[in-house]
């Protein structure tokens, strides 16, 4: 009688309420906004007592920002930096992710890659920049190489720790049910490591922004880092601060526009029952 059907769902499914979550979310947004206001207030007060050559006021910074946007320089430099950042980030993150999975699943590979990770993490960013300039000269390749090399170990370490913490009981289940390699990867390993990988990508994006600016200051003749360096040389402090704001906005767009929604999506199953 395999066709029989059970009736009477006596066990009730646990439900969950979102009311408390949305309240705490609204509270978090208000607190965040208050933090931004506090920074602006402190900045404004400091700018009243410090010489404008050393510290531009929020008002002067905003004016410089509008001027840069109006002249078009903002968009040109932003696009150049964005292209370098995204290319370097993708290359470094992809390499860190792929090698991190391999190293996480195989102890021998983990030992093999460990010295590489150690060297890349230990060598200061300035030295990587100097070597890149020596090998590639000034321009895109130097900056992209720098970003990729600096981003790689963060992604690698996060992916390795994610792959090592995959629930072995699920792996056993998949083996018993003879999941082919593709299903094992897509249904067991990748969803399990999604959260640590995205956390790594968030860290890597922050490091990448710093790396791209450093690379452009030292080894490029264009981009936000170069514009920043130029404004610094000419003591155009309002422009200098305007470029800092642009960098913060860029990081904000990457974090809140792309990475945070991705992290939320990857962790949806975790919060489902809570």
């Amino acid at each position, binding site marked *: 009688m*395999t066709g029989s059907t*059970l009736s009477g769902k006596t066990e009730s499914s646990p439900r969950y309420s979102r009311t408390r979550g949305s309240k705490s979310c609204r509270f978090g947004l208000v607190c965040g906004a208050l933090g931004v206001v506090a920074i602006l207030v402190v900045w404004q007060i400091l700018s009243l007592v410090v010489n404008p050559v050393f510290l531009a006021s929020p008002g002067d910074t905003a004016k410089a920002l509008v001027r840069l946007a109006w002249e078009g320089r903002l968009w040109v430099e932003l696009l150049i930096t964005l292209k370098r950042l995204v290319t370097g980030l993708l290359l470094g993150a992809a390499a860190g992710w792929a090698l991190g999975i391999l190293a996480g699943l195989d102890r021998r590979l983990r030992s093999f890659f460990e010295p590489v990770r150690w060297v890349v993490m230990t060598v200061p960013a300035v030295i990587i920049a100097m070597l890149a300039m020596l090998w590639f000269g000034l321009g895109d390749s130097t900056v992209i190489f720098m970003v990729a090399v600096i981003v790689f170990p963060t992604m690698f370490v996060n992916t390795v720790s994610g792959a090592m913490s995959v629930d072995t009981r699920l792996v056993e*289940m998949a083996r*018993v*049910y003879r999941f082919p390699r593709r299903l094992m990867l897509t249904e067991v390993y990748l969803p399990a490591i999604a959260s640590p990988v995205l956390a790594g990508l968030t860290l890597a994006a922050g490091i990448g922004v710093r790396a791209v600016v450093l690379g452009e200051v030292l080894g490029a003749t264009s981009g936000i880092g170069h514009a920043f360096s130029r404004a610094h040389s000419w003591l155009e402090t309002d422009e200098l601060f305007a470029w800092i704001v642009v960098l913060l906005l860029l990081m904000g767009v990457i974090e809140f526009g792309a990475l945070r929604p991705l992290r939320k999506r990857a962790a949806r199953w*975790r919060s489902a029952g809570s």
Partner: protein
Amino acid sequence: MISLANVSKFFGSLVLFENLSLHVGKGQIVAIVGPSGSGKTTILKMIAGIISPDRGTVTLGSPHLSYVFQETRLLPWRSALDNVAIPLRARGVEKTAARATAGQWLKKVGLEGFENYRPAELSGGMAQRVAIARALATQPHILLMDEPLANVDVELKASLLELLVSFIRKNEATVVYVTHELTEALQIADRIVEVMPDRSLRELELSDRVAVARDWLARSLGKLGAAL
């Protein structure tokens, strides 16, 4: 068919089993009973190939095996329907057909309407029923079950046992069913094997089974009398 011949398993200096032998014929249901920590799950894991015996051999008549684990081991990021459908896809069933079959099995275990729920949104008993549906949907030749009804409500237990028995009889599946409930073993098994304190296996004779049944009946009647 399942055969364990002179199997030994050690954990460090601890001897878990020594020269253990067990034969389960095709289409037979053998229940293994014993207290917690007696090594029942280890026997199942050796049969499933999850752990290897240190000595002896484990022979299976078919590689087509399903396992209902004590903890459900459902993919937490997948819906109930996907959890049942994915092992079918692993066996080469096309995606749409796998999902259709999965839906039918969820209905059979009383979870119609819960197809899109993730494991964390289901109660323990409901998740266990998804795990049972996952195991049966692949139509296995060998079925290993580790306390599959431990978290299921009493009212549903009888219906699920009926579903399991009818599936096993129809498919001539070879079954090893681990439980610590002797009465549950009596209802489902052709043979009952008890793990003894010295970790040897003892097959319960007919007289033992009658004694267990008599004891159970007496307790049930006692409860009924008290209730009346």
